[in-house]
């Protein structure tokens, strides 16, 4: 959740909130306190046997498992970094394949109203196809190997990046084109020096959403047919009834998910310093 740094706002909650604000405790302290409290409560509840240690391994056990995963790995020998590398590699390959194809294609389609209208129903449908539902089909075509997983990621990302690239081109304000024309720019110059930079923010937006999708897809795709990767890790853990490994695995997933979600945002701030508000495109 965003921190409350959007300027003075009247408080409409209880007086306690107002008093708390006057001490200027940063917001994240509350969040951290809540998490620590819940963890403490959890530990306590297990110690008191309110909940079973089997179904809810206490944080103390999870900490030990965390270490064990890093050193010895799970299943034996496959340490966390192996899992991480597997997942990230798959994401990287599928994602970049999708981007390399979708961005130029999207720019092309966006520049042509007829192409845009003709392709819209097809693209809309293809995007509505739930990527996971393609898993059995991909397996039938490509087997259970790496390519299947990479293909699924690529599929899921492709349509998102494509639609955003098309919208990016369509959304370039006509004023920019007029201004460029009246400054004597040739059509090629207009494309590379106006359309392209003007489209970048929206393309980036699509790439952010697509990365989220890639992560979603890979976790699911890794649950079948492989024992490396974060998705595989938590699935394997279940087969061995190691709830603690599952939970630590989920923690890793949360961390990687968080990093992935923010990496592009950080990159965008560096590459596109002129964009004033980096709005999240929801679809």
């Amino acid at each position, binding site marked *: *959740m965003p921190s409350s740094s959007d300027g003075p706002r009247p408080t409409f909650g209880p007086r306690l909130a107002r008093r708390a604000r006057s001490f200027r405790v940063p917001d994240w302290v509350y969040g951290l306190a809540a*998490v620590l409290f819940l963890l403490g409560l959890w530990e306590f509840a297990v110690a008191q046997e309110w909940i079973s240690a089997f179904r809810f391994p206490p944080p103390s056990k999870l900490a030990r498992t965390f270490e064990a995963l890093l050193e010895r790995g799970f299943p034996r020998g496959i340490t966390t970094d192996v899992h991480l590398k597997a997942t990230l590699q798959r994401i990287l390959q599928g994602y970049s394949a999708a981007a390399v194809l979708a961005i130029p294609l999207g720019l092309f389609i966006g520049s042509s109203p007829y192409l845009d209208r003709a392709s819209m129903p097809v693209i809309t449908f293809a995007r509505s196809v739930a990527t996971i*539902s393609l898993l*059995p089909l991909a397996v*039938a*075509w490509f087997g259970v190997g790496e390519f299947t997983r990479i293909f699924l990621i690529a599929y899921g990302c492709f349509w998102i990046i494509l639609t955003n690239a098309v919208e990016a081109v369509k959304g370039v304000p006509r004023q920019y084109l007029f201004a460029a024309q009246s400054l004597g720019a040739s059509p090629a110059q207009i494309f590379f020096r106006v359309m392209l930079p003007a489209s970048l923010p929206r393309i980036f937006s699509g790439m952010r959403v697509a990365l989220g999708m890639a992560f979603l897809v890979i976790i699911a795709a890794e649950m079948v047919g492989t024992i490396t990767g*974060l998705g595989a890790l938590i699935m394997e853990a279940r087969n061995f009834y190691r709830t603690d490994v599952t939970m630590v695995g989920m923690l890793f997933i949360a961390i990687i998910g968080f990093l992935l979600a923010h990496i592009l945002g950080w990159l965008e701030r560096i590459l596109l310093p002129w964009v004033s508000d980096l709005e999240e495109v929801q679809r």
Partner: protein
Amino acid sequence: MNEPRLFQRNLIASWAGVIVVLLVWQVINALELVNPGIFPGPLQIADTALHRFPLADVLGHVRASMQRVIFGFLIGGSLGMVLGIASGWYRLLGKFLWGPIEILRPIPPLAWIPIALMWFGLGEQSKVFIISLGAFFPVITSTYSGMRRIDPMLFRAAQSVGLKGPRLLLKIAIPAALPDIAVGIRVGWSLSFGSLVAAEVLAANKGLGYMVMYGREVGEVEVIVYGIILIGLLNLLTDYLLYNVLFKRQLKWHFG
């Protein structure tokens, strides 16, 4: 208002794309450029749809899927909305809730499957749980953000005519936050739907995802593709209904 000719041209262009794709697909299939056993053509799929799978069966699967997804969506969505409104209104609650939510949010709903199976067993509950997770996070995030982004001017205007407390929340805050909430609902639905399919593909005995898996198990690729297409169409349809019928009508002042 629009020239009829322009409208017709647009319509033709839209259909042209679809027709071209179908034609190319059928030609590839007819020429057997790819093994039709694993790459069926549109006519084969149509045949499967009409003969292999009676409509009643298909509707049964559709109903099973829709029941799950609507149920899970309502649970996750309403919880998300309630908590989102509460944490947006009572700042302190929002600050406390922020921590746990931010930690759990990046975890894809499907990653909860092993835990869900552990806690709820193999039955319907675990699937509904996953689906509700899909709806919960987008909805709570958008609702909270919607509540936070309300223009303070609206409150001052309302207070100057004497509104305060719960009525302020109900009559001003929530309607003002609705556009953002609506976006969250739309995303939440899409995520729920995706989670449904995944949950069914991975483990179910009824439903569209199951249908796809079944096709794989009996080695009939047409059934797989048929199921995939059905899922895609259903996704499109529900999103269209949600956006065009619900949002545009009820929130005409924003989306119209």
